[in-house]
């Protein structure tokens, strides 16, 4: 399988008699993306007021994880032509020739329907509806509509990644309010600088497969400016839970310090114009989001323990 001109579909046909491995089905679920989605979903569950039976909380998290994985599988089915042309993705199960596209689609659709149905039956239908919206948004709005058409693809498409804490919150309360909206806004505003930092040093690969990422369409300097602008909006929004009383001073102080680090990284990308600075911001952005949500959870759990004492 050294012929790089082979199409994803014909590659899959070659593999039809061998069949995919279990690992290939797991790879379809994009486990690394899933881990961040599960973590932010957990944050929604922990931060929401009220009580959810621990078993049902685990079921809600499982549904969020499976739903996210399912949308990843459908994304890999639809984007198999793009994946075949990029070094980072050409060994995925379909372009790697280990799985037929139809199998990936069937797998993704089955898991999507299953995760929404179990969420509705076991937890509540508000959370199930939000999960269905998330999957639908990622598949139809981001993957099929925006990704190949506009450099704003990840700005609008980022909403799909921002829903999990809202789903977690809705699993506990049965509704959505200001705080899950804030959690949504944090991830929504975090997504563009995070992905554009990546696309700055992967621009060549995106251009080769005609995906109109911002550095490809508007240029690297424009992308760097947009990273700084979004970062300037993001950092104040991350601090808002503190003055609104949804988080304590420890979180507020940490959000200021972590935000200063994010802004430093963004301005460094703008000033230095190097791949090194972009890689640094990309790596820091993952740690940043993880720490923010971890701190929010610690804050909520600490307040809960104090309240119970």
């Amino acid at each position, binding site marked *: 399988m050294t012929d790089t001109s082979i199409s994803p579909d014909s590659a899959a046909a070659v593999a039809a008699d*061998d*069949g995919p*491995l*279990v690992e290939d*089905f797991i790879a379809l679920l994009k486990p690394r993306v899933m881990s961040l989605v599960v973590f932010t979903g957990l944050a929604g569950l922990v931060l929401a007021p009220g009580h959810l039976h621990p*078993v*049902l909380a685990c079921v809600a998290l499982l549904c969020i994880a499976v739903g996210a994985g399912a949308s990843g599988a459908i994304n890999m089915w639809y984007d198999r032509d793009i994946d075949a042309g990029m070094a980072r993705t050409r060994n995925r199960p379909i372009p790697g020739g280990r799985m037929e596209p139809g199998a990936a689609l069937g797998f993704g659709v089955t898991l999507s329907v299953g995760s929404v149905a*179990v969420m509705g039956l*076991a937890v509540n239908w508000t959370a199930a509806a939000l999960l269905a919206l998330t999957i639908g948004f990622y598949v139809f709005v981001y993957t099929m509509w925006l990704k190949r058409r506009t450099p704003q693809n990840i700005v609008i498409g980022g909403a799909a990644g921002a829903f999990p804490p809202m789903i977690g919150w809705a699993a506990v309360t049965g509704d959505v309010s200001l705080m899950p909206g804030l959690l949504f806004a944090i991830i929504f505003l975090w997504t563009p600088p995070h992905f554009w930092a990546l696309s700055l040093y992967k621009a060549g690969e995106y251009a080769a497969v005609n995906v109109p990422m911002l550095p490809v369409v508007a240029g690297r300097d424009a992308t760097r400016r947009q990273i700084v602008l979004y970062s300037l909006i993001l950092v104040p929004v991350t601090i808002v839970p503190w003055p609104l009383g949804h988080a304590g001073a420890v979180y507020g102080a940490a959000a200021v310090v972590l935000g200063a680090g994010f802004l430093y990284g963004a301005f460094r990308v703008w000033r230095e114009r190097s791949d090194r600075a972009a890689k640094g911001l990309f790596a820091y952005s993952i740690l940043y989001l993880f720490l923010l949500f971890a701190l929010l959870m610690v804050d909520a759990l600490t307040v809960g323990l104090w309240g119970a004492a």
Partner: protein
Amino acid sequence: MAAPGKTDRDDRNGRERRLRQRNLAMLAVLGGLAVLFYVITIVKMGGGN
């Protein structure tokens, strides 16, 4: 170069191993779902929400 008979046998063994692996994974998933639905039912019947 390996004898054709041996290669065919190796291929068949490889396919059977993959099939067995997939069947075991399917068994684990179905078993897991049965346990999951059982636990959810018990929690719901106990008034858990």
